């Protein structure tokens, strides 16, 4: 099986974020970046499927030069090779624009399966995998908790997946291959890159393609302004050493909120 995994590099969780000079995106200077967590689970699922069924795992990543680090990490964990779509300013593309870049790079690979995380921790649109499937004319399913390959060869190749629904419900869905799945965090246990893996990654192929400047941009939506949200409730914050703050909080809980 040839499995393509679309990964994205996002700011490290809990990074302090401020709006940049444009007012439309964050100030990236000084931030550290990592593989988007749901994408890390998608990569792990691809590696496990390869271990079970054989084949190849190809990491696919659109992003500026810094995204190399995420690609190297994917290779160190076990991806066989990677495709880096070099795009300096991802902010210039909306979901459809990004998915078009990915689709163009993915098409000549003729993968059996494409996996990606269910959403990104930065934009959080949660759509890239679904749009990619539509652009490539493939069936898809989202928020997947389990992937079983029913038949991996030829015209009858198919999978059966477990999809998460709301409020603790699940559903199995069968579909033919090739297909696109968006993977839910927690589907598997993430592995760490081994020293040997990190060493091997250095010799693995990274094919670079450049994103067409401007022309792939979709014009149906635009981030106009990015800003700190207004607070819907005004929290009373207690300060001082932990003991003092805790004592003040308990007093409020007892006499104001009356919950103790």
């Amino acid at each position, binding site marked *: 099986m040839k499995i393509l995994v679309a990964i994205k590099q996002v700011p490290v969780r809990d990074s302090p974020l401020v*709006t940049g000079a444009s007012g439309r995106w964050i100030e990236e200077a000084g931030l550290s970046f990592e593989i988007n967590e749901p994408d890390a689970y998608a990569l792990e699922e691809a590696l496990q499927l390869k271990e079970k069924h054989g084949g190849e795992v190809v990491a696919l990543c659109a992003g500026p030069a810094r995204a190399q680090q995420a690609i190297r990490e994917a290779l160190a964990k076990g991806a066989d090779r990677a495709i880096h779509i070099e795009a300096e300013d991802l902010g210039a593309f909306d979901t459809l624009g990004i998915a078009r870049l990915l689709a163009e790079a993915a098409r000549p690979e003729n993968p059996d399966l494409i996996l990606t995380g269910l959403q990104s921790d930065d934009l959080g649109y949660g759509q890239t995998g679904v749009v990619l499937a*539509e652009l490539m004319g493939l069936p898809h*399913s*989202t928020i997947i908790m389990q992937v079983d390959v029913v038949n991996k060869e030829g015209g009858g190749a198919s999978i059966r997946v477990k999809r998460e629904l709301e409020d*603790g419900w*699940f559903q199995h869905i069968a579909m033919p291959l090739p297909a696109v799945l968006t993977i839910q965090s927690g589907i598997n246990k993430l592995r760490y890159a081994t020293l040997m893996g990190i060493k091997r990654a250095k010799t693995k192929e990274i094919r670079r393609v450049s994103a067409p400047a401007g022309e792939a941009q979709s014009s149906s939506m635009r981030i106009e302004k990015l800003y*700190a949200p207004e607070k819907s409730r005004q929290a009373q914050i207690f300060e001082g050493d*932990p003991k003092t703050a805790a004592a003040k909080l308990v007093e409020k809980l007892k006499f104001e909120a009356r*919950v103790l």
Partner: protein
Amino acid sequence: MKILTVLEHQNGRLHRMSWETLAAAQQIGTEVDAALIGNGIGALAQEIASKKVARVYAVEHALLEHYTADGYTAAVEALVRKTNPALVLFPHTYQTRDYAPKLATRFDRSLISDAIAARADVHIGGSPVFVRQFFQGKLNGDIRLEGPGPHFVSLQAGAWRADALESGSAVIETFTPELNASQIRQAPEAPFRESARAVDLTAAEIIVSVGRGIGDKDKIPVVEELARALGAELAASRPICDAGWLPMERQVGSSGQTVSPKMYVAVGISGAIQHLVGMKGSKTIVAINKDANAPIFEVADYGIVGDLFEVVPALAEEIRKAKA
């Protein structure tokens, strides 16, 4: 502005978020239509027709009996092409997430997912601006829709109030899209639950909930001690359950349980929207987090910014004193 709302149902009932979507459309649009997709959904269409909408489209076909991304996309695409709305609104449910991006792609559009508000200029004929959250709720963004419609927007749970819904009397029109079985590639099986829930968090009066900030499974007893002091049920955000540090049945959030206890104490939980939708209805919310900018403080009534490993034991101690 002409709006088509695509409502949702399951197990013979309308999804509660359907009413919120309809209420939002009434506030934003000048002409509002509603659509419901399925097979044998006449009674539910009647229910919608008692609200202030122009038309209710009952989109019916034997192949729409069970939800599939391919079937729903084809059906709604046909209806949008026929009715030509400027805006198509959806409740931001798991089902919408599964097919609405595919539908928008057919119209060369990007879906604006999980919107929390519409800006005022949405009313004055200009291009609409919707607000949505970025970076797990740390920042908000205004998004302007550009170019001609139809545009596609899904609305976050609880962002518009269903009780603002106006009543009326609408015409029901049955719409039968052309579908054939070969178009639908997904074969869905019946939904199921893993096991009966042993823990019913919805019955708890006080909940102490733990998130990523705890850092390590071995540290869970720190919050257990606080829960004991308060006589509270212990709960967790998704990553804690994913990691197996607490069982899945203790998860609060969009994929876990939705709770509204007398008091909810969030320890080391940053407050991603998937968690907030499961607990923001709590009467009193207390947040303990090291990051003063964590979104959890936006819904909290009381907060302590600090190291949970110092604050939580101190708090447990003070609570024991207060109760003694």
